[in-house]
C-alpha cells in the first residue's frame, strides 16, 4: 500500500492552487464562491486562511481536496494535478490529504463506536489485518491525548465537544497524511478547550510532519498557528503574507478593518468606534473591479473599473489593492 512518491515540480511547495474558480447555481443565479484564487503552501508550513462567513474560504478548502470540483483552475499536490484525477487514483491520493471540520459532534456518526470511527479510514485504505488496524487506532488515540482502552468501545454522545474534536483529529491522522485542511476546527469550542485543541494541532503537526491549511474567521486563532496568512473577501484573496508582518503592517484596507474589529481583552484598549462600513455584498452579484470597494474608505473610480491583482509590497507580502496602506 506504499504510495509511490512523485517528484514535485516546484520544490518546497506541497500544494499549489492556480487560478481556482468555484461557481455553483442557486436557482437561476450563479454564486461566485471562489473567483480566481492562487496560492502555494510549502511542505511543513501552516497557511492560515481568514475571512468572514460567505467569503468562500470553506468552499476553497473543499475545492482543494476535490470534495467540490472546481469550475476552473488547477490544484496540484506534490506535483500531481488533483483536478485531473478521478476514481481510484483520486481515492489513493486522498489518503495523503485529510479534512477536520468545525462541528466535531456532527462529524462523527452517532451510532458507531469510537474505535470503528477511527479505524474506518484504514478499512477504506485497504488495511486488512484487524490487529494492525487496532494497533494504529490505539497509537493515534493515545497521540491525541485520549486513553484508547477507555474510548474505543464508546459512542460519540458520551464525549464533550473538545473530546470529539480530539477523536476527529485522530481519525484524520490515522492514515499518516501529509496535508490537512482544518476548517474552523476550534470555533465551536469554549475558550478553555480551544487552547487545548490548538496546542494539540501544533503538537501533531510537529510529530507527524504535517502541512496545514487552517481556515478560521478568528484572526487571533489563525495567528497563533500560522506561518503565513491569506485574507479572503468575497471569493478573492486580498492579501497574503507572513503572519507577523501581516498583522503588524496590513497592506489591504480589509485586513486592517478585520484587525481593528477584533475585541481586545484589555480594558485599556478602548474600542475605536468603527466607521460604519456596512455588510459584504452578495457573492451572486459581486461588485466590479475590487470586490471590497463598496466598503472601503479608500476606494475611487479606479477600484470600480479595474480589478487589482496581487503584487508584492514587502518580502513575502502580496496585496491586491490599488491604494495599499503600505
Amino acid at each position, binding site marked *: 500500500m506504499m504510495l509511490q512518491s512523485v517528484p514535485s515540480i516546484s520544490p518546497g511547495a506541497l500544494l499549489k492552487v492556480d487560478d481556482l474558480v468555484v461557481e455553483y447555481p442557486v436557482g437561476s443565479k450563479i454564486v461566485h464562491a471562489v473567483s480566481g484564487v492562487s496560492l502555494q503552501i510549502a511542505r511543513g508550513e501552516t497557511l492560515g486562511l481568514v475571512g468572514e462567513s460567505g467569503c468562500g474560504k470553506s468552499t476553497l478548502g473543499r475545492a482543494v481536496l476535490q470534495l467540490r470540483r472546481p469550475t476552473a483552475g488547477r490544484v496540484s499536490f506534490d506535483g500531481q494535478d488533483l483536478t485531473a484525477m478521478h476514481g481510484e487514483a483520486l481515492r489513493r491520493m486522498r489518503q495523503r490529504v485529510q479534512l477536520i471540520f468545525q462541528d466535531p459532534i456532527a462529524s462523527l456518526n452517532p451510532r458507531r463506536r469510537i474505535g470503528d470511527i477511527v479505524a474506518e479510514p484504514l478499512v477504506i485504505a485497504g488495511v486488512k489485518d484487524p490487529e494492525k488496524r487496532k494497533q494504529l487506532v490505539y497509537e493515534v488515540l493515545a497521540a491525541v491525548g485520549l486513553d484508547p482502552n477507555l474510548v474505543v468501545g464508546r459512542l460519540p454522545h458520551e464525549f464533550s465537544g473538545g473530546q470529539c474534536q480530539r477523536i476527529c483529529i485522530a481519525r484524520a491522522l490515522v492514515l499518516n497524511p501529509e496535508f490537512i485542511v482544518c476548517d474552523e476546527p476550534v470555533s465551536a469550542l*469554549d475558550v478553555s478547550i480551544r487552547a487545548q485543541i490548538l496546542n494539540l494541532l501544533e503538537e501533531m503537526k510537529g510529530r507527524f510532519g504535517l502541512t496545514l491549511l487552517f481556515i478560521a474567521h478568528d484572526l487571533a486563532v489563525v495567528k497563533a498557528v500560522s506561518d503565513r496568512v491569506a485574507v479572503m473577501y468575497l471569493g478573492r484573496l486580498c492579501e497574503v503574507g507572513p503572519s507577523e508582518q501581516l498583522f503588524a503592517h496590513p497592506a489591504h484596507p480589509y485586513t486592517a478593518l478585520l484587525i481593528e474589529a477584533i475585541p481586545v481583552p484589555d480594558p485599556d484598549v478602548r474600542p475605536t468606534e468603527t466607521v460604519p462600513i456596512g455588510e459584504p455584498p452578495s457573492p451572486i452579484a459581486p461588485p466590479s473591479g475590487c470586490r471590497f470597494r463598496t466598503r472601503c474608505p479608500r476606494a475611487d473610480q479606479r477600484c470600480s473599473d479595474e480589478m487589482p491583482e496581487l503584487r508584492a509590497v514587502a518580502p513575502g507580502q502580496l496585496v491586491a489593492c490599488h491604494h495599499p496602506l503600505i
Partner: protein
Amino acid sequence: MTGNSLLSVEDVTVNLPTPRGNLRAVDHVDLTVGAGRTLGVVGESGCGKTMLSRAILQLLPKKAKLSGRVMFDGQDLLKLSPEKLRQLRGRSLAVVFQDPMTSLNPVLTIGTQLIETLQEHLELDDAAATRRSVELLAAVGIPAPEQRLAQYPHQLSGGMRQRVAIAIALSCEPKLLIADEPTTALDVTIQAQILDLLAREQRRRHMAMIIITHDLGVVAGRTDEVAVMYAGRVVERAPTPDLFKKMRMPYTEALLAALPRLDAAPHTPLPAISGRPPDPTRPLRGCSFSPRCRYALARCQAEKPALEAAETSAHTFACFHPIETRADANA
C-alpha cells in the same frame, strides 16, 4: 445596595430536573446593576449565564425551580402576576438574544413586529407607531427603513436581523437591556458595529445593560463591571479594569491566559486549562474549579470557598488561594 440599584439579584438558585438528576444551573448568585451601568457576565457554555438571564426575565423552562429574590425597579419580579410581568418585559426590561432568527417571528413583517411591540406597551395610533418604527430602524443603522417595514426577517442578513431585534428591544425605552451573546452569531466586522450600536444607544438613553458573553474581549472595553461565572456560581466580580489587572480567582487568570492573542508570536503554545468543567448534575463538594486549578490544595476539594472581598468591596472572589495582586502598575 438595593436602594440605588436598578436590578438586584439576591441569592438566586435555579434547579432543573433532568433525566440524569437535578441540574443546578445557577447556584446562589448575587448581583446588582445600577441605572445606566453595564455589567458583563462572562463564562463558558454550561456555566449558567443564560439561565441566570432567564431567571431575571422570568423566562425559565416550566420545570425549573427558582429560589431567591430578583428586585427590579423596586418590584420583586418573583411576586408579580404573569400579566404584570408581561407588561414589564418589553417595556422597561428588554432582551436581545444570540440568534435573531429565533427571536423574530418568521411569518410577520419587520414593521408588524415593531408596531405590535410599540402599541402593546405605549398608547400610539398606527401612524405614530409607524413613524416611530421608521425612526428606530434608522437609529439602529438600517438603510432605507421605510422599505424594511414591509420585509420579512429572512430577507435580511444576520447583522441586519440583529439590528431589528435591537430596535424592537429599544422601542419602549427600557431601563435595562439584557443582551445574551448578542454578537456570537455574527462576523467580526458586524460584531464591532453591533457592539458600537449598543454602546451608543445605551449612552443616549441612559439605559442599564447586562452583556452576557463567553468572550472576555467583548466585555473588556465596554462594561463597568464584570462577573465571571463557573459551574453556576459567580466566582469573581470586579470593576472591569480590576478584573483584568488585579484578578484574584485562578479561573479568571486561566481563562484570559488561554485566549490566543494578536500580540503573541505565531506558534506560541497557549497555557490551556486542562480537563473540562464539572458535570452540573453532580455537584462537587469543594471549589468546582479545583480539579482544573493549578493552585488547588486539599482544602479546595473539601470546602466550597465563599465570595469574599478583595481590596475593595466592589471586588469579590471565591478562592482559598487567590492570586497575589501584582505590583500596581498604575500607582
